[in-house]
Structures are given as structure tokens and as C-alpha cells.
């Protein structure tokens, strides 16, 4: 009996480790290729560790295209969206979780339904709208929507706010506090973990966004890192070592943020998936 158990355990570990390798290997391959000479990268059978370790791929990749600028642009868009998402989604979620007004259930249901709507349906008229407003090739189409809250964020925050005991705000209400005070002094401090989750997802969303910048930006100086990377690929498609260096640079900030906020990521995923 014990023996059978040990065999089972080994089998389980083996599958999990193969799975983990499948997840990590592409990232390892990215980084190793980014440190190789163009000679070494084409060697067959492939070498696992770059010799020599070529750091200059990075400087070369980052200077042939103005990546510093793409970083600044992306950072600006990301931060603007982050602030907008935090404020608008949390204020709205407060209303859906804590306030009573006619039609709130219906509007919340519509909000949830809007998550099922394929982006392609709204993209074309939205694009035409921004064009009529004369705002193509600006950051407004990429930033402003975040300031109207996202259905996903509102849903997640509402779920979280609903778990905060009502006695707290009722007591404050009796003491004469208004809703703004209650929201700001009670709900916000108590929901820091959920707000961090929203912040992280918003960061990822803007940093990783490709279709938005692709559709709305047409001047190279305004490009984001995702667009910059794609442009780099079309210019240097055969230079795999440089392309891998550029990709590594685009991925690094996301990986750093992920490792800092990992616990919250997992919580956020769990929260959205389960408490529907």
C-alpha cells in the first residue's frame, strides 16, 4: 500500500515538474537567446548557456529604436489609467455595494453583461467617435475610458465591499458622516488588498495592451513598448538575439511588478472566478 502511494506521488510530481518546465522554458529561451552572438544563436544543436555572455545586444536593441521614449510613453499611459481605474471603479463599486437607488440592480446587471460583449463590436464606432472628436494619434482614447471605470474592476470591488460589515458605516452615518467620508475613511482603508489587485490588473492591462495603441497611434514618437516591439520585429526580423533582448526589456517591468504583488494577483483571480 505504501509503495503504491510513493509511486503515485512520484507520478504527480513528475507531471507537475514537466508542466512547470513548459511554463519556464520559453522564458529561459528568451533570456538565453538575448545574450548570444548572432553566430551562436544559429548553432545546431542549440547551446543552452551563452558563451560569451553578450550584453551589448541590449544596448544595440535599445538604441536602434527609441525604446527609452516608448517606455516613457507607456509609463505615462499606464499611470494615468491606473489613477482613473482606482478612483472611478472604487467610487462606482461603493454605490453598487452600499447605496440604495432605483435601477441599481439593472445597471449593475448591464455592466456585467457588457463584459461578454466582444471588443470588436464597439471598437469600430468608438474609433470613428474619437476620429470625429479629432483625437486620433493622441493618448485620450487610451486613457479616458479608464476614467469611467471598468466592469471587471467594479464587479471585483463590489464583491469585496459587500464583505465589509455594514455596522461600521451605519455607525458613522449616525455620527453624522456623509457618504464621501464613509467611503474615504472606512471603505477605502479596509479594502486596500482589493484596490491593490485592481491596480495590478490595470497596470498589466495598459502595459500589455497592443490593439489600442495599434489602432489609435500612428506616429512613431508616440508609440508604446508593445507597438515599439512589433515595429522592431518588422525592421529586424532576422536578428533574433536583438529581438529577444528587446522582448526581455518589455517583459521585465511586468515580471518585477508581478513578483512584488504576487499574493494579490492570486487573490484577485480567485475572487473573480469564484464569488460570481
Amino acid at each position, binding site marked *: 500500500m505504501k509503495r503504491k502511494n510513493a509511486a503515485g506521488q512520484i507520478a504527480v510530481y513528475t507531471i507537475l515538474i514537466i508542466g512547470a518546465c513548459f511554463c519556464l522554458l520559453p522564458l529561459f*529561451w528568451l533570456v538565453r537567446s538575448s545574450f548570444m552572438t548572432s553566430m551562436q544563436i544559429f548553432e545546431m544543436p542549440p547551446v543552452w548557456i551563452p558563451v560569451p555572455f553578450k550584453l551589448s545586444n541590449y544596448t544595440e536593441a535599445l538604441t536602434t529604436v527609441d525604446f527609452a521614449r516608448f517606455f516613457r510613453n507607456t509609463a505615462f499611459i499606464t499611470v494615468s489609467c491606473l489613477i482613473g481605474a482606482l478612483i472611478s471603479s472604487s467610487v462606482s463599486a461603493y*454605490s453598487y455595494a452600499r447605496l440604495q*437607488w432605483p435601477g441599481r440592480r439593472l445597471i449593475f446587471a448591464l*455592466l456585467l453583461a457588457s463584459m461578454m460583449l466582444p471588443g470588436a463590436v464597439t471598437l*469600430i464606432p468608438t474609433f470613428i467617435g474619437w476620429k470625429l472628436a479629432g483625437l486620433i494619434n493622441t493618448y485620450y482614447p487610451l486613457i479616458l*475610458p479608464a476614467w469611467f*471605470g471598468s466592469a471587471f474592476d467594479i464587479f471585483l470591488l463590489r464583491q469585496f465591499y459587500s464583505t465589509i460589515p455594514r455596522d461600521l458605516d451605519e455607525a458613522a452615518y449616525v455620527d453624522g458622516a456623509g457618504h464621501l467620508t464613509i467611503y474615504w475613511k472606512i471603505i477605502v482603508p479596509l479594502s486596500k488588498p482589493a484596490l491593490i489587485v485592481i491596480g495590478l490588473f490595470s497596470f498589466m492591462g495598459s502595459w500589455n495592451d497592443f*490593439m489600442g495603441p495599434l489602432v489609435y497611434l500612428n506616429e512613431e514618437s508616440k508609440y508604446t513598448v508593445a507597438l515599439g516591439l512589433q515595429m522592431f520585429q518588422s525592421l529586424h526580423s532576422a536578428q533574433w538575439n536583438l529581438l529577444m533582448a528587446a522582448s526581455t526589456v518589455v517583459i521585465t517591468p511586468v515580471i518585477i511588478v508581478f513578483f512584488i504583488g504576487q499574493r494579490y494577483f492570486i487573490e484577485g*483571480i480567485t475572487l473573480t472566478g469564484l464569488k460570481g
Partner: protein
Amino acid sequence: MIGKHRAIVGILFALPSILGLLLFTALPMLSSFVLSFTDYRTVNTPKFIGFGNYTRLFDGTDPYFYKSLWVTFKYVILRVPIGLAMSFLVALLLNQDFIKGKSIFRTIFYLPVIVPAVAASMIWIWLFSPDLGLLNSFLEALHLPTILWLDSEATVIPSIVFMSLWGIGSTVIIFLAGLQGVPRSLYEAATVDGAGVFRKFRAITIPMMTPIIFFNLIMGSIGAFQVFTEALIMTQGGPNNASLFYNYYIYREAFQFGEMGHASAIAWILFIIILIITGIFFKTSKSWVFYESEV
């Protein structure tokens, strides 16, 4: 009076989301619907043409429509069941009591999810490269025939499915959280009754997990219908339109050919397809999804 005041405060707080719903969902939906009945290329003013855009799609005047539908369905049919089965399996294994380093595994499985789609596409083009890629080197080392991956009509969709499995991490985490919520007492009672591992899996785990399987099925299908970045960066719909994913087809019509009216009609058909499919899922779910609260 107080009630009225309360209502105003409530609406004021929800205002960003209400405006957002109107400006970025309701209004665009309505205009997209109207546009789909017009001839509107970016150069002319919209002209009403009735069902013109739709008939052009269905009677085959636009040869790409059926092609991209077929491509997208092929992808969805492969991707959704394989993705669900694999993430469920990984979650089950991770949920075993004896597993050490659970949080490390969880982190590793989630890691690919955060990689920007553009960068992920770059990595995978490189891995898929027929002469120099890692995948074919593996096959060669094992003395197996190499594969053309993205470069052949037969293998391009399975290749993109394979690549997409790299990102099952968030589904794994949702399944894992669900598994942790299954009451242990059920398993203990079943053990006392002499049920074996497979019996417990079939009689307890699966029924208790059906709501989560259902959730992941819906979200996975909606996501799978909307592949875009990979199609644009890795294959541009090729070879010979074998990876002309529906969303890429819409993008190409709208933003490369400037056919806004036609593209709106194509987008609406996608919306209707997704509605029908989720509708079918919801209808059939009554017979297989088990909700605790209904007992």
C-alpha cells in the same frame, strides 16, 4: 425627502460607470448596429444599403468570411476542451495534500499569463522557427520528423493552440481555489463508505466543481473567439489565410481596407455567435451544473 436625497447620492457615486456604460458600450453598440447596414468606407459618408453587407457575407461574395469562421471555430473547438482538461488536471495534482512548494508551482504556472501578448508572440515565433527553433531541435534530437508549425496550413492552428496552453495559469488558479472549497467532510464520509479514489472523483469532485467548470467554459470560449495579437504578429493570417482569425479579419477589413460598414456587420455576426453559444451553454447547464444552494 431623505429617500430622494439618498437616490441622488447613489447615482452620483455610480455616475462614472453609468456614463461609461452609455459612452463606451451602449452608444458604440447602437452605432455599430446602424453602421452595419451602411456602405461606409473611411472616405465616403455612410450610405444606407439595408442588408447589403450581410448578404455579401453569406452569399460568398466576400470569400474570407466563411474561411475565418472555419478557422476560428477550429481553434475554439481545439482550444477550449484541451485548455479546460489540462488546467483541471494541473489543479487536481496541485491540490494533493502531500505536494510541497505549492505556492512556487502556482507562481510558475501563472507567470506566462502576465507576459505581454506581443512579447509572447515573439518568443513563440522563435521557438516555432522551422530550421532554428527549439521545438524542432527537440524533435530532431528524438529522431522524430520536424514540423513546419506556423508555416503550414495544416499545423498553424494546432500550433497556436499549443502556444495558448502556455497561458492556462489563471484557469488553473480558479480551479485550484474551487477544489480547496470542496468540503473535506464529503470525502471523509465517502472513505468511510469504502469509496475509492476514482469513485470519489466522479461522485464528489466533479459535481462540486461543475459551477466552476461552467464559469471557465464560458470565459474560455469567449476568450478563444477573440484571438487577435497572435494572428497579427505571428502569421498575418497566413499561410494562405489558414490563420485568418475572426477578430483579425475584422481588424483587416476596418483598419487596413477602411471598410467600416462591412466590418461592423462582421463584428455583429461574432456577437450573435457568442450570444447563441453562451445561450446554449446556459440552457444545457441546468442538466449538468450543480449548485449547492439549490439543494
